[in-house]
């Protein structure tokens, strides 16, 4: 069963200044017997979470509160400094908008490439499915992505990224970029993914969006979970949903 368990996870994020990237400087410091000026900031502080399938978690907090970092920890980008992270299920992290897309290549080539990056073999049928979801004109398939507007680009990237049911989907400020109609459709697809025994985690500072999409909201501030989680109603229904799915 899909699940994410974090227990007392901390992450010290090393801050590298311009000099810290220099090996000459470092060797010099060594020779002179000076201490290495490696600073670290505690980006995630004692976070514990237990997430079961069917959960749609909204991470809410101001910039720099550790939302994205927490998602990256779960995705396995950063190694935790202390604590335990246990992730069961295939993680599909979609934290950047256009990671991996090559704007010079035509749309279908990009879809193929992105599918391959996601570890899937692209077939014409799959690409047709994805294109149908974008609702873009057929002739645009053969145009380079750099000719697309940002909204169109988002459609292509979103459709590609969510074409396959992932067990765990990590999203960072995704739905806010496209127009309303498509964003409604994208939300539906996300909700559909949850039916596929998935966990969705969405980081945003748009509380409205989180309320609509998520069934549990985790407020973060300076790397800590703060205050009471979520609204009582949504939380209870989330727990119920979790029980059903467990």
């Amino acid at each position, binding site marked *: 069963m899909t699940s994410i368990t974090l227990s007392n996870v901390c992450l010290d994020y090393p801050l590298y200044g311009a000099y810290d990237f*220099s090996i000459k400087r470092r060797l010099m410091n060594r020779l002179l017997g000076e201490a290495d000026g490696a600073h670290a900031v505690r980006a995630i502080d004692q976070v514990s979470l237990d997430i079961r399938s069917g959960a749609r978690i909204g991470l809410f907090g101001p910039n720099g509160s550790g939302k994205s970092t927490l998602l990256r920890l779960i995705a396995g980008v950063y190694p935790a400094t202390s604590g335990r992270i246990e992730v*069961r299920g295939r993680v599909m992290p979609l934290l950047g908008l256009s990671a*991996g897309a090559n704007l010079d*290549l035509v749309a279908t080539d990009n879809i193929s490439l992105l599918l391959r990056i996601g570890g899937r073999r692209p077939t014409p049928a799959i690409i047709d499915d994805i294109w149908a979801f974008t609702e873009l004109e057929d002739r645009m398939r053969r145009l380079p992505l750099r000719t697309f507007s940002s909204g169109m680009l988002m459609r292509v990237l979103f459709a590609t990224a969510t*074409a396959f049911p992932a067990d765990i989907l990590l999203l960072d400020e995704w739905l806010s970029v496209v127009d309303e109609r498509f964003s409604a459709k994208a939300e539906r697809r996300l909700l559909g993914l949850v039916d596929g025994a998935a966990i969705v985690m969405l980081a945003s500072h748009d509380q409205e969006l989180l309320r609509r999409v998520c069934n549990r909201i985790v407020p973060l501030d300076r790397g800590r979970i703060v205050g009471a989680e979520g609204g009582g109603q949504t939380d209870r229904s989330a727990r119920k949903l979790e029980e059903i799915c467990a």
Partner: protein
Amino acid sequence: MDAAPASSRRFSVLHVFKVFYPDLFGGTLTVIRDICAGLAHAVASSVLVCSDAPRPRHEIVNGIPVERVRSLGNLFSLPIAPTYPFRLWRRIAAYDLVALHAPFPLADLVFACGLGRARPLVVHWHADIVSHGRLRWLVEPLMRRTLQRAEAIIVSDAALATRTALLRDVANKCHVVPFGVDLRKFAALENSERPGSAGRRVVACGRLVPYKGFDVLIRAAADHDFEVRIIGEGRERAHLQQLIDGFGIADRVRLLGSLCDDEMVAEIGAADVFVMPSVTNAETFGLVQLEAMAAGRPIVNTALDTGVPRVARDGREAVTVPPSDAVALAGAINALLADPARRRRMGDAARQRAATHFATAAFDQGIERIYRRAVAAHAAAHRASEQGVGLLDSVRIAAALAWSDLRHRYVRSLLGPFWMSIQMAIMVAVLGSVISHFGPAGGLSRLPMLALSLTAWTFLNGVVLDATTALQASASLIKDRALPPVVFLLQCCFRQGLFALHNACVPLALWLAIDPMDVGGVFAALPGVLLFIAFTFAASLVLGALATRFRDLKPIIESCLTLAFLASPVIWSPEMIDRGSFIMRVNPLTHLFAIWREPLATGQVPMSSVLYVVMSLSVLVVASLVTLSRLRKAAFWI
């Protein structure tokens, strides 16, 4: 359009049952057909069944691909198809999900043996084995194992899950999805006048098998004057006909045989009362009574311990009588026939209930949801062991990225990477002409080797230099898509490999034009080439990671590489260089080139160089392993 991608991609399902149209008509087949049709937007369904009729092995029936396994007949209601389990086992891998319509012990054989675990299994529990109860002990362990292995079990009524002993152990996997009925099929009847003029027509429908209880209905009709029409075919036909003839009521009790859909709708529409006289729990739901409800007909059904009396409820949509009780059955039928107002009331209530509680849309959605969850749950369980991106995945992704890089070159110019080849050809020409002035003769014949060496050098240089910036360039893929950094170091290697294949045209052309010597040396050179590539990759891994951590390393690496190149015998001819030079002897590049150049030129493998390369490579491999273990931290550096 919208519904299909709303959740995700289409997936394929193999329906496993004992028989299919047109060998049989009946509730289970209706359900399979409805699932195939109702989920067509999301699921590509196929059917694997047995048949004892001479039918083609593969056939499309109502738009559904059907494969039939030859059966020699029936034994205890089971087809004798010894090859069925084998065929099923071979087919499973081709589908995303297997839907077993139970009971079907022949298929249980496969699942109980633990075969076909690579795909998720959903069991549609249609009924328990009732007819041949004495053989239960034989198949029950098989069924139990199948149910334990299944991702989900679908029943049509909650009563089945709680009252079937076999299902009680796996109750947590049972999902109740009531069958649906397509009301449009009966819409034409809604406003039509009930042909109640006579007000004495009773219709029943089902396969002519003992558990349907048609003999009870015939007995009930014997002493009363209502008409009975029984739709369906089966092995009891002769027996039932005999019974009818025995009572001398053939004029008003008729066996209509199998009817097509339209005829059936018309028959049900012409009924004043629809009767469901089933006598055993093999009747779990009574799909056909649901159809009669949709047609707005009052029902008489039996108080079985299944969904039957809960679909049409006593006193509201139906009159429920004890099973196998001809007197009670006749009484209920007569009471209804005598009271048109009550019939109308019950009929309206029945249609209302069919529309609100048994809509096809709810059925389709319920089934699709369970299928999807089963696929996802199975996939999650399967992948629990192999967390993250494996090595093979990394290689695949790196290859795809490198391939895309190559295409990118072609997008920008028609010649693509061949521009580099042209550049190299010019370099070979210039260098060749310079060198030929030093040597007395045969300058021309050294050109192919010079070109080949330059190709190899371009590869090595390119891989290492690309690696120093690769991680920074792919920061978004590392941080946002969580790809392991090693992918991008591999990508450098693959990309430069593809470019090297382009560049290799130059030495190949020169070799063909100038001096097509024997090719025996190629095989002797092959191990050397592989060592060269391995060395290059290991070096790029270590230097790439270091240069990402310490940005000022890149220019140092760059100039070291150039120096090493100039201090190696790559472009110089033997006459021009001091072979004993210390620098040249310790320069790894000297040996790295020697291990494949010398076998190619002379057929001799220089053992000392091989030894040198193998030793330095093992040091590099250790360094690479250390690097790989630390590479996760690269996300902090970029």
